[in-house]
């Protein structure tokens, strides 16, 4: 993983959806390299759909998704999997699989048909487990771990894949607040250490604003606003995106923007 590689992920005027229902209506998005980007938006606004088109899980109806100026569908599938990884919202945990076994499955894109694990594979797996702090758990069964531990295992698996771009669909959902912060801290470490481009969907606007370098706000499959957290987290934008009245303040810890929702029973 050299520092100054070019790895530009870009969507130009994409329309995508399921069956006859269109979800994304002509989006233009360029993901900043080596940064942490967060997509926010109300339920069913197309956040997950956008991630899926980036990860080639969903084909666009029109427009183009490209990586390094090359159309994403023209990549051989394993080669793409070495550059771009996706952690789905609810991956399936096979019964009775050890942590080690699961993390090592992240090496799939590097392995030949019948070849076993190489030393390089072992290194990547061990390192991924070290970063996520799960080496001690390596012989435990994944389905017996707590939610927070399990999520670290999944992220370790994505790390073992050693991609330049890592896409995560709500990696902190269903986790206690302390685990949420822990996971986001670890992702930030990863971004700083390896310059990995991270793109994720998060529900918590305040945590998003704190950890993101760049934000995208979506509504009904259209891009409402993009930019630094300061540029995106504004009272009007939050109203447009979530139909929520709020007050924006400064997070006393990180100096990032911080929203306080207002609601019907209280006023400023």
């Amino acid at each position, binding site marked *: 993983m050299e520092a100054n590689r070019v790895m530009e992920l870009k969507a130009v005027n994409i329309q995508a959806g*399921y*069956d006859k229902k269109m979800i994304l209506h002509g989006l233009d998005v360029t993901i900043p390299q080596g940064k942490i980007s967060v997509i926010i938006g109300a339920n069913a606004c197309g956040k997950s759909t956008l991630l*899926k088109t980036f*990860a*080639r*899980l969903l084909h666009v109806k029109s427009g183009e998704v490209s990586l390094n100026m090359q159309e994403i569908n023209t990549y051989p*599938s*394993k*080669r*793409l*999997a*070495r550059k*771009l*990884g*996706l*952690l*789905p919202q*609810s*991956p*399936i945990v*096979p*019964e*009775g*699989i*050890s942590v*080690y*076994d699961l993390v090592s*499955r*992240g090496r*799939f*894109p590097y*392995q030949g*048909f*019948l070849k*076993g*694990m190489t*030393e390089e594979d*072992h*290194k990547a797996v*061990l*390192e991924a487990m*070290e970063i996520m702090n799960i*080496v001690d758990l390596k012989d435990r069964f994944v389905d017996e771990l707590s939610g927070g531990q399990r999520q670290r295992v999944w992220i370790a698996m994505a790390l073992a*894949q050693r991609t330049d771009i890592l896409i995560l669909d709500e990696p902190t959902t269903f986790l206690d607040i302390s685990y949420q912060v822990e996971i986001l801290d670890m992702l930030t470490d990863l971004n700083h250490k390896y310059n990995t481009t991270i793109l994720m969907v998060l529900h918590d606007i305040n945590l998003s604003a704190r950890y993101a370098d760049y934000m995208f706000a979506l509504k009904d499959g259209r891009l409402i606003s993009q930019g630094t957290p300061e540029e995106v987290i504004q009272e009007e934008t939050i109203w447009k995106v979530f139909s929520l009245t709020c007050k924006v303040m400064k997070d006393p810890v990180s100096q990032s923007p911080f929203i306080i929702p207002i609601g019907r029973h209280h006023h400023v």
Partner: protein
Amino acid sequence: MKHNIAVYIHDFQKRKRKEYLIMFFLFLCLLMAALLILMVGNTNYSLPTVLHVLLGEEVEKAFFAIRTLRLPRLLCGILAGAAFGMAGSTFQNMLRNPLASPDMIGISAGSSVAAVFSILVLQRSGFFVSMASLFFGLAVASLIYFLSHGSGFSGGRLILMGIGVQAMLQAVISYLLLKANQYDVPKAMRWLSGSLNGMVLKDVPLLAGVVLVGLCLLLLGSKQLKALELGDEYATSLGVQTKPLRLCLMFTSVLLIAFATSITGPISFVAFLAGPIAKKIVGNGANHVLPSALTGALLVLLSDFAGQFLFETRFPVGVITGLLGAPYLIFLLIRINKKGGFA
């Protein structure tokens, strides 16, 4: 890195060695069961006699009993058991559901209908019956696949659809048996219960060929299958082309099942049992193909042996495996009920 990579790799290799050792042990068990079956019967022969006969020496009487009766029975049992075992376990892993073996979702029943029809209505036997059950098994598998496809692939839908199709096919079999000439029914019944009686050596090469090709294909796909177990989305993001993989694995498994069924009849529950037993023995992380093939073969051999000699009357192998499989099915259903989900 904080941890020592060498120690870590050493650990890994130790685990791998243990897996190989268990596999070797399974293989030894199979070998011993095979020798036992060649030695024991109406007349018992000593190990040297058996070895002499296997090497082609003409030993009086023993030659006929061993070469013509016991050897074909043994070889067909091993091959069919291996075919059922690995195909069943592939289906179960692919659909992430222990209920999803081909003998539960109508594929074996498809082969049975074709065979019963050929025997009772068309009055055919041998090669024709095999081919008919092979093609019909494949046809039923494709039917279930397309019926359950809808807007995208769903394992749960496929299983439900398969159980429905299975019920329909069983009804067709019952109808054929009721309508048929009474003299032909025993022949069809013997075939239906899954039996190693009347196996001949000339069936073996073709079956061996199919099993070998199937084994290689499933082994090649087993690494991709491990990625597929994590869900379609994750598999795709790991670089697996899920659709061609699934079609290829399904075709290979159905081919194995239908072909083995066409020779021995549907030996019930072997496909359903072999995978879970093998998993218990070698652990979930290991490659599933060889262990479940070995387990399937062992299941068939031991059940056949028990069916022949443990009771006063002789039972076909399918009856014994049925006795083993039914309680496991009930256990599985109770466990699924407790977990409160369809898996």
